């Protein structure tokens, strides 16, 4: 290694002035941890809300302490907060910006993100956005009730329901801030990957995690810009008297809306197009980093090369690209032109091809290997399992004719909770167990590992709980249980008769959900306990090949002017575990050929 005699003044200064521990630090690891903490708060709140929903669905007459009975509007506000928190503040924020900040620069051999200060600004904007969202609870009339998809006219007309006044405005403000923050963050990620790779880090030597983050950032950039435009239009409909989304002659709660919305000719369909143009890429933004991580973790613990590395890069990009073309599959029953429905159905099924290619590569990578079943590995396997289970219902929903029946039922809820919520969470869990040394290590203290024993309990509890909760929802959905309904008991007449059957399973699902939440206790205990007392990780505890485990790399980017700067170089692609049976021989990306031979 050639030491660089003259440290670049600009660079050393920036790393020295950034106190890594300060609240407004521009240090990428600190920001990554801050994002993860934010996501942890969001997931905790979102989980409590989901439990309340389950309890209400099962025992609708129970009274909530300190609150009273859960009214229908309360239930819908719970749905909205739960969805918004989980989709945006957990599944978008944690994988992409949390682990992205923490790990991505090291994995490409960079000393930091391209724009550290912008990074800090994105984080605090995200935090502000979450605070604005949560403050909607206290709005007169309560929180917004139009769900995370905010379909008009419900979302466009303040009198459409309690919470659709101030509460909805706060929701809009929150998502506007979030879109801006996410766009800034993705600009940062993209520039970092394009410009900051180290010596020798060619595009096809990039770890698949980096490809996941990169593709997700590309999607974020495009998708959140469109969401922002949609939010602006919705804001105008609410406050500038326009009628982009409010049709002529629309009567809401007995009041004709024409006078308030110009002499317009709007259509809710326009919102659906704009929203889902954002919304479908968004679900891939949430899952692509997890897919990348799964590939890497499976290869690491199976000590195998990734099956067909270049194809995996291609499928990542292809999923990203196709993801932009399929938004109409959320609109089959919304009044879409039937021909458009067919086109969207075909593009949607096309996306199953690269997705299946990924699954095949995962399976081929671990096929007949004798993997080490560490917790990170278990969660990666869980990811594969959930991705398959949740994915299989995708092509079913992609049939317009079947979706006529299934749309807005719990079948859809089951689909996306398995594939997005649970697979996404498993990706995050795997990342947490795998990268815990990176989460805990600072210049002053060494990295630690999480407890494997508790991890195992956590894994088995979570996977059982996940399936116990979400598999039966397929059945209740097929039996006709609709989503976004506050109460399905005590309905008079034929509808009540229809609902009697799915109601039988409600108690089971709710117990499943409670079990699933309880299964997270070992995780929280593990986090807290291992943070102080976990086994010391040492250097490269998983015998991994990617750059974040390069000894000393981590100290190098905390270095001040006095420490010599070392050139960071990469000599090969990741996952070079040459002798599959002997875990001791493997070739990390940073070791040059001459040393390795």
């Amino acid at each position, binding site marked *: 290694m050639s030491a660089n005699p003259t440290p670049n003044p600009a660079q050393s200064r920036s790393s020295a002035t950034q106190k890594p521990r300060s609240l407004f630090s521009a240090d990428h690891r600190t920001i990554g941890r801050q994002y993860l903490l934010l996501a942890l708060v969001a997931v905790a709140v979102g989980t409590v809300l989901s439990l309340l929903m389950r309890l209400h669905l099962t025992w609708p007459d129970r009274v909530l302490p300190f609150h009273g009975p859960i009214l229908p509007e309360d239930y819908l506000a719970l749905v909205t907060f739960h969805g918004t928190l989980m989709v945006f503040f957990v599944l978008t924020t944690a994988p992409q910006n949390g682990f992205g900040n923490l790990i991505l620069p090291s994995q490409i051999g960079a000393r930091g993100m391209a724009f550290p200060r912008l990074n800090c600004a994105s984080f605090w904007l995200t935090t502000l956005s979450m605070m604005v969202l949560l403050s909607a609870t206290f709005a007169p009339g309560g929180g917004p009730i139009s769900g995370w998809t905010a379909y008009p006219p419900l979302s466009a007309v303040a009198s459409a329901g309690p919470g659709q006044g101030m509460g909805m405005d706060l929701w809009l403000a929150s998502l506007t801030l979030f879109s801006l923050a996410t766009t800034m963050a993705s*600009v*940062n990620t993209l520039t970092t990957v394009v*410009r900051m790779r180290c010596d020798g880090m060619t595009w096809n030597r990039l770890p698949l995690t980096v490809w996941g983050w990169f593709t997700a950032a590309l999607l974020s950039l495009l998708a959140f*810009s469109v969401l922002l435009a949609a939010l*602006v*239009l919705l804001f105008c409909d609410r406050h500038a008297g326009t009628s*982009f989304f409010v049709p002529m002659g629309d009567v809401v709660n007995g009041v004709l809306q024409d006078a308030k919305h110009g002499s317009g*000719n709007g259509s809710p369909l326009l919102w659906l197009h704009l929203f889902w143009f954002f919304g479908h890429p968004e679900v891939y933004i949430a899952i692509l980093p997890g897919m990348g991580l799964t590939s890497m973790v499976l290869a690491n613990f199976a000590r195998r090369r990734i099956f067909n590395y270049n194809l995996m890069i291609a499928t990542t990009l292809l999923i990203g690209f196709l993801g932009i073309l399929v938004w109409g599959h959320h609109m089959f029953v919304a009044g879409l032109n039937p021909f458009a429905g067919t086109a969207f159905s075909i593009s949607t099924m096309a996306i199953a091809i690269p997705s299946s290619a990924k699954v095949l590569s995962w399976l081929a990578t671990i096929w007949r290997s004798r993997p080490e079943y560490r917790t990170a590995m278990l969660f990666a396997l869980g990811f594969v399992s959930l991705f398959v289970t949740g994915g299989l219902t995708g092509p079913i929903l992609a049939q317009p004719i079947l979706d006529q029946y299934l749309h807005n039922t719990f079948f859809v809820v089951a689909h996306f909770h398995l594939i997005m919520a649970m697979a996404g969470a498993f990706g995050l869990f795997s990342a947490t167990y795998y990268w815990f040394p990176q989460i805990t290590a600072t210049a002053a203290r060494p990295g630690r590992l999480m407890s494997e024993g508790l991890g195992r309990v956590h894994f088995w509890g979570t996977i059982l709980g996940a399936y116990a909760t979400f598999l039966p929802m397929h059945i209740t959905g097929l039996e006709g249980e609709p989503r976004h309904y506050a109460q399905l008991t005590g309905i008079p007449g034929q509808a009540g008769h229809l609902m009697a059957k799915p109601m039988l399973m409600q108690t089971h699902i709710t117990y499943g959900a409670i079990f699933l939440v309880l299964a997270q206790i070992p995780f929280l205990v593990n986090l807290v306990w291992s943070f102080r007392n976990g086994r010391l990780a040492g250097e490269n505890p998983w015998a991994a090949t990617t750059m974040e485990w390069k000894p000393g790399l981590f100290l190098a980017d905390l270095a001040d002017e006095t420490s010599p700067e070392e050139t960071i170089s990469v000599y090969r692609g990741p996952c070079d575990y040459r002798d599959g049976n002997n875990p001791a021989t493997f070739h990390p990306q940073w070791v040059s050929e001459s040393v390795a031979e």
Partner: protein
Amino acid sequence: MPGILTPTETERRPERRPQRRTDDPDHGDHGNGRRPPTDKRTGGGGDGDNWNDRPQGSRGPREKLKRYRLGVFFALAGDLMFFVAIVSAFFVSQASGRFDAYNNYINPWLPTAIPPVLWLNTAVLIISSVTAEIARRKMFHQFDVMEEWFGLGKPTSRRAMPWLAATAFLGLVFLAGQWLAWQQLNVQGVFMRSNVSSHFFFLITGVHGIHLVLGVGALVGALLSLRYSQQVENRQIIVDCSVWYWHSMGVFWIFLFALLAFFQ
């Protein structure tokens, strides 16, 4: 001088040089990243600086500039999507009608006649892009940059400042002109809420105006940095990035204007 600035073509090809090391004294950049940040197209070194060969922070004088520029371009790509979304909504709304109670198909879109002052505004914006580009080039003028490098004052700033100030001024004129257009429409009784078409007219001019306000802010920031910042590299970056942003807003406007003027 050129010998230092320009590593030969073969040297820059990583696959031909398996031993990519930077401690080779003949290898152009010595890793301190302190060569003069001029705009001379050398065909190597200065602009061919390749991440593949050199450690970060020593990829030549334009490394940081290129990073920021790329960031701005990514951000502008997102912004382009923002406008594309709005323009698509424009066309969708324009094409959609409904059936009234007597089963007649009605399309209530009434084209908004654009106030003629928009032509003037467009001209002003185009001129402002020209002044902006002149300012940007002044920042990279080789003699001036070299003088600064030798420590002889801040000639780049001195030369760029009037052009940049003119750009900001023209930007404000454009904004005032847009405001005037709004007033003229209001006098005619056309408001944002009047018709679907006027929704879009005010929306598009409005969001584009907000972008220009941000642009003027960036130009003012650039002017301040020309005045106060010592590092020529930083001044180049902020001028370069604001000007690229400004150009893009000009281009966006030309398309938006064409949309409003000819596609109503």
